[in-house]
């Protein structure tokens, strides 16, 4: 299996290569520290390119006043920078739009990790670079190793300086080329001493430490590692793309165990590096146990989001025994390696805490286990997630509940005091602590226990109204009371929390169910979007819109919102960006944060159907982690619904096409049969006359000639019918309506059909007094000819064909009736369809249903109606036409 997998070129690898060719190419000049000469090298290479005739433009390059660098910059075409005012300071930024418009072959954009001035399109410069690459522009850029996301915390630990500007590792993986600018640490320190390295004054002291020889050696090591990993990566992509059977290990998966602590962040980054080095796909898993607290949820979400950002799959598993769940998952997912943090615990109920790492070492013996040490200086805690602070450990509600319940117990106790002893009174206070736990949670319960204990001591133990206790029995009561109230309160609190969790998860399921039901009942696309928007608004408690992606990969603008001024150009730009880049955009994100909406693309298997927009005006709260998760889940459902609609449309259009094709086939068969039949007689008669004339009696020769002429006329009628039908369907038939005598029309039709009706007796039963019809004489003649020809064709010879007519106050009815097989009632409505023939089930009669269809067209064009009348025997076709206006003799 593994063998064949590797020999076939992997589609992902081919795709990755193909994408590199379409997009612009990114070259990163990677350095270990500022001052190693990245910018200098970049400019030197760019000058060479310029000399080769490449269209180079400088987007932004910081020379920091270095003269050598300035000299290199001279002569390179520059795009003017954008000036922005932020907090009354004038700042200069890369002018992305100008650069995109100029569209050079190669753009120079210094300092990839730079954070843009607020108000720019993207929060980070690397996002600008992405856009340039998307536009097909090659980009040269510079980057120091400490800015790489997965190296960030190592650098922090080595140098003690926290670096806030990071770029995702993905960008270095995307780069077409990474050039390592290496400078031995001693040389760098020398340059620093000579003042050749730009260092802002404010940071000088911190940087003195930063540029110590030890730090620089470590950083250089890191840069070399990043570059060499990158080289490995290139090699493996190349080998896979070209299906070279290399020494691939059986490809397993790397599993990293994540918990809801800050320490996990470091574990995740380590796992990312391990996975990269070994070219393993990796998954971050979290095991949710029955007692897992929901309060740490935000931290967990942040951890999983980080893993996902670093390229991992994520999974949340449930189970009581963490270790066993992990091993089971690893086994079913072909894991090769499990990465776990040293500090993680296996929490078994009624069991002392145990290290997860130790448990795995003991039990998961068929996996390679990697244990990651906790960060020494705890720098992992350096970036708290906002929601962690959101819930304070003690709220005023807890205090109020504790005091309230204690006071209540005191009042009741005072009232009951005359009737009962002090030990029973203690039970009332116990009840108060239990209530506090049940309604307020753990903190309220503990607080209430303490207050109740004090109050009881103060009010009901001797000596009264003092906190001292005389009676040894009271001491026992008090101690037991405190212990019991603690335990009961905690139990109540836990019960409450579990009930709350259960309620939350029920509500979540109901929410999803409700949402999917709304989507399922939508009847069309528009309905679906409206239903989704309404559902989302209710679920999130915020205004939501759902915008469809149009053919240009932009969002269809919400017209009403635009008119109301609630959807501005920035919002539209953010929505378009979200669709175009398949990433979130707008408020609260790194892209176009100035927008008033937060946009999540609706996507499934690489296809974008639209965006969900959540309205977040400046006054409202943002979207919290729980809501965001909900939003992504709902997005998936919505995408599935959109996909379903699209498939349904495709199926429908396929059906229509099939119907059109079968009509075309019927047309061909019909025309071919009807045109050829007369030709058979004509060809046959003529060849017989040529080849056998000496043997054919003269009388028969005449009959042959007569037949040939008759058939030629029939062919002519047929062609006339076809032409008229075409003209009719194009509306090009000109009517010349006048008062027409029906008897004239009938006799004219019969005269056209001498051959066809030769075997039949035709009775024309039209009273001479019948008023004229208002019709086109030629068309009426043709209609009657068609009807009579059908009668002649389908009714057996020797039978009678009858034509009669009668008048009403405003219409004339003409009926052509035969004694043929008749048309079943069920088919009467369809015989007027083009190419329909009664009794088509037997494929014997391939043939034309054109006559009736054309007749119907003509009659309707003349303002009349045609239909099959009820008759005892055979077929009766009835035409209704308007009466000609009465002519008043002058």
């Amino acid at each position, binding site marked *: 299996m593994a063998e064949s997998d590797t020999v076939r070129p992997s589609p992902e690898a081919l795709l990755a290569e193909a994408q590199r060719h379409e997009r612009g190419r990114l070259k990163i000049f990677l350095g270990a520290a500022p001052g190693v000469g990245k910018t200098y090298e970049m400019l030197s290479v760019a000058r060479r390119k310029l000399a080769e005739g490449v269209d180079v433009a400088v987007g932004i390059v910081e020379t920091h006043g270095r003269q050598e660098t300035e000299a290199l910059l001279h002569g390179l075409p520059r795009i003017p920078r954008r000036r922005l005012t932020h907090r009354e300071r004038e700042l200069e930024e890369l002018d992305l739009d100008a650069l995109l418009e100029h569209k050079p072959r190669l753009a120079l954009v210094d300092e990839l990790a730079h954070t843009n001035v607020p108000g720019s399109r993207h929060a980070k410069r690397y996002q600008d670079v992405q856009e340039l690459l998307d536009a097909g522009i090659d980009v040269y850029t510079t980057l120091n190793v400490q800015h790489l996301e997965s190296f960030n915390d190592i650098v922090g630990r080595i140098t003690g300086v926290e670096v806030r500007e990071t770029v995702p590792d993905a960008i270095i993986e995307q780069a077409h080329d990474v050039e390592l600018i290496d400078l031995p640490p001693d040389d760098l320190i020398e340059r620093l001493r000579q003042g050749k390295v730009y260092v802002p004054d404010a940071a000088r002291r911190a940087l003195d430490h930063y540029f110590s020889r030890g730090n620089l050696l470590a950083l250089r090591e890191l840069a070399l590692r990043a570059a060499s990993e990158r080289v490995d990566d290139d090699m493996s992509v190349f080998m896979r793309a070209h299906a070279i059977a290399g020494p691939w290990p059986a490809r397993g998966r790397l599993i990293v165990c994540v918990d809801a602590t800050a320490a996990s962040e470091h574990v995740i980054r380590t796992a990312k590096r391990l996975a990269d080095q070994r070219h393993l796909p990796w998954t971050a898993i979290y095991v949710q146990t029955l007692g897992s607290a929901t309060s740490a949820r935000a931290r967990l979400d942040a951890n999983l989001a980080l893993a996902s950002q670093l390229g991992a799959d994520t999974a949340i598993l449930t189970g009581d025994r963490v270790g066993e769940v992990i091993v089971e998952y690893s086994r079913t997912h072909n894991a090769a390696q499990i990465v776990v943090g040293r500090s993680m615990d296996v929490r078994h109920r009624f069991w002392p805490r145990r290290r997860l790492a130790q448990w795995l070492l003991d039990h998961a013996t068929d996996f390679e286990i990697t244990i990651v040490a906790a960060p020494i200086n705890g720098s992992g805690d350096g970036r708290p997630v906002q929601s962690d602070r959101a819930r304070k450990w003690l709220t005023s509600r807890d205090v109020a509940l504790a005091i309230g319940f204690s006071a209540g117990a005191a009042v009741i106790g005072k009232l009951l005091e005359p009737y009962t002893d002090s030990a029973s009174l203690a039970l009332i206070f116990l009840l108060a602590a239990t209530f506090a736990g049940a309604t307020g949670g753990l903190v309220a319960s503990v607080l209430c226990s303490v207050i109740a204990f004090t109050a009881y001591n103060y009010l009901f133990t001797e000596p009264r109204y003092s906190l001292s206790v005389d009676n040894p029995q009271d001491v026992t009561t008090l101690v037991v009371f405190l212990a019991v109230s603690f335990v009961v309160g905690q139990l109540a609190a836990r019960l409450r929390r579990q009930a709350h969790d259960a309620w939350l998860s029920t509500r979540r399921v109901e929410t999803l169910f409700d949402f999917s039901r709304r989507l399922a009942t939508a009847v069309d696309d528009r309905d679906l979007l409206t239903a989704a928007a309404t559902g989302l608004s209710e679920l999130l408690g915020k205004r939501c819109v759902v915008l469809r992606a149009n053919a240009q990969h932009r969002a269809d603008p919400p017209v009403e919102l635009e008119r109301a001024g609630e959807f501005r150009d920035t919002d539209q730009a953010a929505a378009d960006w979200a669709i175009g880049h398949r990433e979130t955009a707008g408020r609260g994100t790194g892209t176009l944060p100035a927008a008033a909406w937060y946009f999540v693309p609706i996507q499934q298997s690489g296809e974008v159907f639209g965006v969900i927009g959540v309205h977040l005006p400046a006054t409202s709260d943002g979207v919290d982690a729980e809501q965001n998760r909900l939003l992504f889940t709902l997005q998936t459902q919505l995408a599935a619904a959109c996909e379903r609609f699209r498939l349904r449309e495709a199926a429908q259009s396929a059906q229509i096409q099939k119907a059109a094709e079968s009509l075309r086939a019927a047309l061909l068969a019909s025309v071919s049969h009807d045109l050829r039949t007369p030709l058979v007689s004509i060809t046959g008669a003529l060849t017989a006359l040529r080849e056998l004339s000496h043997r054919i009696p003269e009388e028969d020769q005449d009959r042959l000639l007569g037949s040939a002429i008759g058939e030629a006329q029939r062919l002519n009628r047929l062609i006339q019918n076809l032409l008229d039908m075409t003209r009719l369907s194009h509306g090009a038939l000109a009517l010349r309506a006048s008062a027409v005598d029906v008897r004239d029309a009938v006799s004219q039709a019969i005269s056209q059909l001498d051959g066809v009706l030769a075997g039949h007796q035709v009775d024309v039963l039209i009273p001479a007094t019948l008023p004229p019809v208002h019709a086109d004489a030629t068309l009426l003649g043709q209609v009657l000819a068609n009807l009579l020809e059908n009668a002649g064709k389908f009714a057996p010879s020797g039978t009678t064909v009858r034509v009669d007519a009668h008048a009403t106050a405003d219409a004339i009815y003409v009926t052509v009736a035969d004694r043929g097989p008749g048309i079943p009632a069920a088919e009467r409505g369809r015989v007027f369809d083009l190419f329909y023939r009664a009794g088509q089930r*037997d494929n*014997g009669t391939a043939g034309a249903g054109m006559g009736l269809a054309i007749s119907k067209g003509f009659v309707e064009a003349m303002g009349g109606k045609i239909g099959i009348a009820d008759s005892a025997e055979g077929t009766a076709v009835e035409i209704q036409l308007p009466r000609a206006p009465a002519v008043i003799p002058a």
Partner: protein
Amino acid sequence: MQARPRLLIVDDEEQIRLFLRITLNAAGYDPIEASTGREAIEACTGKKPDLVLLDLGLPDISGIDVIRAVRVWTQLPIIVLSVRSDESDKVAALDAGANDYVQKPFGTAELLARIRASLRAHSGETADPVIEAGGLRIDIPAHEVRRDGQLVKLSPKEFDLLLVLARAAGRVCTHRHLLESVWGKLHRDDVQYLRVYVGQLREKLGDNEGVPKHIVNEPGIGYRLVV
């Protein structure tokens, strides 16, 4: 003088029957007519025709059903008259037991030639050990084929194939009939065998692949050995 062969004309078009009647009469046959499938089956029993000219598009039952009904009790030759557009109908008719087909519209000479070929094949059904067709002489007991007196060396399969074609000389043989007769029922759909062997046969018989004069291709239907 031999009695005039009786031909049954089955067609629902009056004008076609008229010209066939006159033509066949003049060519020395005794034509009788039927305008529906049922009449045709009746006529086959009651009037004992020597050959049937059958239109596939009949108003009551399909021509193929007529062939099947007739083939239950007699091997009398049936020539199908059909338009070009329904190749599959033609193959179905031939598979159902029709002996040949003539494509509409047709000339008198072609029709008469086909009638003669079918009548001759039918009358000579008593196995003739030597078949002569179009300059070829096939001696079945001797397994010998001569072209213009020259011995032609054929493989057993090539000989079998030529034999089937020669026994139906002048008439079309469907792909399926040829495959079943030479290779057996299992190979009835392996039309590529035929292409290869017919190519080899044509080469050995000195036939030009582009304009063959012995083994003619009937696209979508089969092959015909020209007499």
